[in-house]
């Protein structure tokens, strides 16, 4: 082997090692950071392990939002029209959070079946429903009067 070839081989081996290390890192990080999406029906059916972090989506049930007078915790029910799950969250809810709105929450279940949310997302457009939520609702059998997308003069108010 000429010295030049040796050097090339070395370079190649170095790259190979580097890329493999990177791939290992990558897959490891990937596996430990995937978050599953569940619907309230999945949870009621016991499809979720207690303590695991996951995301849940649904509509905030009308009249279910209860704020604590002392601190910033709030409790509400999330429903996919077939089933509902109690959720608690401490902090500032997004601007578009309101009853009847489709939202996505991140967190885990405690042993009493309460979903402890660490993050609540509501989208920045009242006509927009997160695809996951729309899907969960559809699976549960009901897609309430699909927030119609623009079009026509009905949405335009003076």
């Amino acid at each position, binding site marked *: 082997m000429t010295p030049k070839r040796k050097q090339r081989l070395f370079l190649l081996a170095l790259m190979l090692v580097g890329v493999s290390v990177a791939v290992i890192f990558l897959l490891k*990080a990937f596996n430990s950071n995937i978050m599953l999406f569940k619907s309230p029906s999945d949870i009621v059916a016991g499809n979720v392990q207690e303590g695991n972090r996951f995301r849940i989506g649904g509509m905030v049930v009308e009249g279910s939002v209860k704020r604590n007078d*002392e601190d*910033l915790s709030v409790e509400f029910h999330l429903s996919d029209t077939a089933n509902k799950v109690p959720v608690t969250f401490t*902090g500032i809810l997004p601007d578009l959070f309101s009853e009847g709105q489709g939202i996505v929450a991140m967190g885990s279940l405690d042993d009493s079946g309460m979903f402890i949310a660490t993050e609540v997302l509501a*989208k*920045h*457009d009242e*006509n*927009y429903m997160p695809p996951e939520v729309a899907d969960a609702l559809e699976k549960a059998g009901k897609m309430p009067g699909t927030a119609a997308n*623009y079009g026509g003069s009905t949405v335009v108010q003076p």
Partner: protein
Amino acid sequence: MIAELGQFALILALCAAVVLAILPLIGSFIVQPQWMALARPAALLQLLMVTVSYLALTSTFITNDFSVLYTANTSNSQLPLIYKISGVWGGHEGSILLWVWVLAIWTGAVAIFSKHMPAVLLSRVLSILGMISIGFMLFVLLTSNPFERIFPIPVDGASLNPLLQDIGMAAHPPLLYMGYVGFSVSFAFAIAALLCGELDSATLRWMRPWTNIAWMFLTLGIALGSYWAYYELGWGGWWFWDPVENASFMPWLLGTALIHSLAASEKRGVFKAWTVLLAVLAFSLSLLGTFIVRSGVLTSVHAFASDPARGKFVLYFLAIVVGFSLLLFAMRAHKLKGHANFELVSRESALLLNNILLLVACAAVLLGTLYPLFLDALDMGKISVGPQYFNAVFVPLMLPVIMVVGIGALLNWKKDKLKGRQTTLLALIILSLIAGAILATQFDGYKITAAAAIGLAIWVAASSLYGVYYRLRNKRDRLSAAMHTPAAFWGMTIAHIGMGVFTLGVALTSMFADEQTVRMGIDDTHKLAGYEFRFKSIDEVRGVNYVAAQATFVITKDQHSVSTLVAEKRVYNVRRDTMTEAGIDGGLTRDLFIALGEHLGNNEWSIRLQYKPFIRWIWFGTVFMALGGLLAAVDRRYRVAATTQKRARNAEAASGATR
């Protein structure tokens, strides 16, 4: 009338694009100079027509012509003029029209600034740009026509999403598109090179400034988007690894790799096929980004109203572009083989390392962004990939890049033993680490990681500056030598220092930021990071098109007044959207950030208080990088080279004529 004019102009532009895409390309193969000569006028005609079309749409916004559906959905008579103008790209249809316009501008710019480019190359480059143009114009005309009318005509429009009623958001899309679409020029050069079967350094010299400018715009666009998210979304974060952010970040990563591999290809004739591949991939990722944003497959801030037909169109278009380019690449790439050799320690190796790491980083982002989509498409469950994944992968991949950036720039081409520089570099490393260790004591709670991060940032700057010194070391008159150093060299140095500034900002913000969400009533005080925040008052104020609850806070530190901040909760009149306007006291070493949450009754509010040390350095760093890109693009060498070439060609033509 104006709307129909706009649509008609767009159809004419499509005709111009068809001519542009076909005749010059064929002409370049069958050697028909007249056909090739059509490229420039066709490109300019296309630019003119798209401009007319775009201005027509803008005029329907300004004149409140709500008989146009898109205008009625996106604008409103109460909207301030500036947001009527920026509102044109506030929805899907208009933003795609903006895309088409930007593409026409780039195409026109290539046509104008390429007087000295060989006719065959120019006609092919412009033809390929014309083909892309056809794709996007058809997209507008077939799936997203912004000029559609509605009847009955509404009294007023539905107004622009209040999130977009902001000066930063007004400028973000055009900048981003200038970057995204700018990579189409590099792409066109790459494909033209494949068609020609050669990629000589003259072509590469044409390609470099265009790529640099596109990269500069993309850098600024992403940075502005990040800054906007920071002050407008009310969370105080600057990057969320949101799929749409990733969509713009992936072309940036590959674009960064591309500008580096272009340097190696031009100077040393190596990595030519690789450079072509990067140009193809960077543009493909720009298209993928468009697909991700416009198809509505993702949950994201950017996913406004969406339509599957549009997603499909872009997906097919993407498949055609990627398919044909890769096929062409497979058939022709072997012709681009370089012959130059280089040793293990050389600038080529450093650039190769940079490229590999950037590509792997891009692949990691791509995996995290697309994997959930694939699973969903195959109906295998819904998942999301959190920011932790991206951080865990991205940081270890980027650290080596940042560590060697200064040394790489210092290495000679072909072969380098670092003779005479080893001691200095070693000294610089040690001094940087010591400086880092000392400076880290300035923060509450000593962190060894903070010392390392500060040391790293100083090392990047110091090694880059040492590169300047090393270049000028043997010159007698250093100042005049510095004046004569090519702009590209300064551009590189500034961009690399920008990396250091950026790294420092990211590291310090992530390590020392403090945040608290609290419940506060009037005159309540709260302490955070040594600052005392007092909730002074809350008032109702009226803006042009909104009503706001405006909270005033007085901030003191050790009894000294620091600042008075105003944070607002706005309710917009037309759409009844609620918006948070954060109060921010910006500074070189820290930002103080207050966002109003909800009214909890009894004049008590939930309030988010944040202390963000060195967060501005993140954006300063990106401004440095963009400035570096600009300097590199305006380097005289590219123009001089072009003129010399022209002279050579003229001489050749003259001698040909006398023969």
